[in-house]
């Protein structure tokens, strides 16, 4: 693969940092951040289309292109549409987000819901799970930012440069502009990423002569027995069972425990448009991995016919783009990865700041804290946690296990969380016990039996059953009207 000039790579990184600077200046000039509510949830004044682009940005990871292509290399043509089905997570989350906005209109964080709906022990347990979820997501993004420079320049630019670019960019817009900064920066990043993905995808297809020659060679490979016939089956059963089910499980079980997405839902001006923002974000994002995955299928055929060197599935996208497009396209790659990582990490940092400042500090340390004090605490937390992300990402290491393990501590709470918004009899203790038992059972299936996909589902079902049966035996009688009271003296 052709390498990129290191100076050009550094310049491209600096250009990407300019976006947060412009956003910070813009938000300051428009005086959008005055109160803590402005800082944490954009004063609940954001247009749903702005939220939609921000949601897309958080959903765009390196895996949206690399992982999607890997799916087709491993599963054939069925991989083309299975990975994009992660979008189902956004489509379904839109329904839940609308519901929570409806019953708890003044929420600043989803963890705050547990404080009012349940009790202290469950509130603290959820806070721990929520912080761990946002932090591990940010950590893996930090590693991706480092790897992009190393990969494109053939190690001429050190790994830590990408991590440093990411950290500086995140601190600039989250610290000064809070949620408004996050929304506008992620909006710009999505507007950068989407056309880059489309241009790179279409240009690569054009360079290899379009689908015609690829399909022709596919048929020859199948006839000669070099390629299994089920690799051209769009609904390959094996792929559906081993790939689609975990994709859907991960999408359904991780989103509801991520404050990153909830704060965006709370920021939308009209509560009726929250679901719309998530649905359209899902539709928009769906086509990004879809296009990337078609290139994965092309790479599979080109590798089988010897027109491209054999590479692992995870490198297939970069390899096919690197072989058929000029090295200048590497600049687009840097922007794509930095756009994806800076936006997502910024949202995660703000989410952790919100949970620690609003939930922990205000609830357990200073109940009389005013808006300015909250903003100050959140800013300190954002700075410290961003520095922590830089520190843990400073050395390249594989934390795939951390990411795969994430649903073990999110899935057990999803059933109780969602049901409790509809049923007043759902009680705290069964959810608490169900959460811990579900986590233990899921962890056992994951670590001892090596069944990642099923571990999530078993954790979800076990915890859900305990929550429902336990609540039936000793039901709660929650009055939902409590959640609609706005505490005017708070901010």
């Amino acid at each position, binding site marked *: 693969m052709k390498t990129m000039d290191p100076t050009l790579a550094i310049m491209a990184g600096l250009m990407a940092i300019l976006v947060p600077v412009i956003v910070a200046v813009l938000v300051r000039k428009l005086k*959008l951040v005055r109160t803590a509510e402005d800082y944490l949830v954009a004063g609940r004044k954001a247009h749903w289309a702005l939220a939609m*682009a921000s949601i897309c940005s958080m959903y765009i990871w390196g895996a949206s292109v690399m992982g999607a292509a890997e799916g087709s290399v491993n599963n054939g043509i069925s991989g083309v549409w299975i990975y994009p089905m992660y979008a189902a997570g956004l489509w379904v989350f839109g329904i839940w987000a609308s519901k929570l906005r409806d019953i708890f209109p003044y929420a600043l964080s989803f963890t705050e819901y547990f404080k009012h709906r349940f009790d202290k022990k469950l509130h603290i347990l959820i806070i721990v799970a929520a912080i761990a979820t946002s932090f591990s997501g940010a950590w893996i993004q930090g590693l991706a930012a480092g790897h992009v420079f190393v990969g494109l320049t053939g190690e001429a630019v050190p790994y830590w440069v990408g991590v440093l670019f990411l950290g500086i960019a995140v601190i600039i817009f989250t610290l000064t502009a809070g949620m408004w900064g996050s929304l506008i920066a992620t909006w710009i990043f999505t507007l950068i990423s989407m056309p880059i993905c489309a241009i790179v995808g279409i240009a690569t297809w054009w360079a290899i002569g379009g*689908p015609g020659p690829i399909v022709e060679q596919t048929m020859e490979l199948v006839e000669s027995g070099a390629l299994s016939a089920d690799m051209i089956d769009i609904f390959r059963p094996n792929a559906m069972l081993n790939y689609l089910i975990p994709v859907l499980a991960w999408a359904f079980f991780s989103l509801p425990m991520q404050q990153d997405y909830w704060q965006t839902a709370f920021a939308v001006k009209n509560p009726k448009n929250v679901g719309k923002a998530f649905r359209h974000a899902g539709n*928009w994002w769906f*086509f*990004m991995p879809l296009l990337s995955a078609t290139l994965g299928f092309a790479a599979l055929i080109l590798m089988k016919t010897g027109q491209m060197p054999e590479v692992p599935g995870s490198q297939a996208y970069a390899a096919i783009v690197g072989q058929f497009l000029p090295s200048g396209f590497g600049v687009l790659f840097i922007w794509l990865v930095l756009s994806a990582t800076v936006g997502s990490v910024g949202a995660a940092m703000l989410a952790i700041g919100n949970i620690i400042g609003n939930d922990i500090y205000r609830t357990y340390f200073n109940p009389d804290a005013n808006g300015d004090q909250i903003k100050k605490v959140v800013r300190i937390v954002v700075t410290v946690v961003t520095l922590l992300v830089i520190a843990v990402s400073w050395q390249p290491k594989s934390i795939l296990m951390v990411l795969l393990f994430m649903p073990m501590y999110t899935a057990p709470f999803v059933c109780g969380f969602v049901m409790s918004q509809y049923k007043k009899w759902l009680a705290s203790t069964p959810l608490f016990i169900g959460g811990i038992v579900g986590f233990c059972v899921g962890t056992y299936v994951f670590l001892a039996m090596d069944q990642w996909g099923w571990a999530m589902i078993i954790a979800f079902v076990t915890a859900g059953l305990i929550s429902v049966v336990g609540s039936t035996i000793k039901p709660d009688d929650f009055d939902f009207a409590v959640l609609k009271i706005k505490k005017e003296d708070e901010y």
Partner: protein
Amino acid sequence: MNNLEIFLWTCIISSGVVLFGYEIWNFIVVSKNLASLSKDKE
């Protein structure tokens, strides 16, 4: 042209249309909204 080729063409063309379509629409809608926010502040 067989089914596989039609499927691939459909994926590529629909991706291009949707990715650029949403891009243009979203840019126009959000820019207008931010401009109106800016006017409100003045």
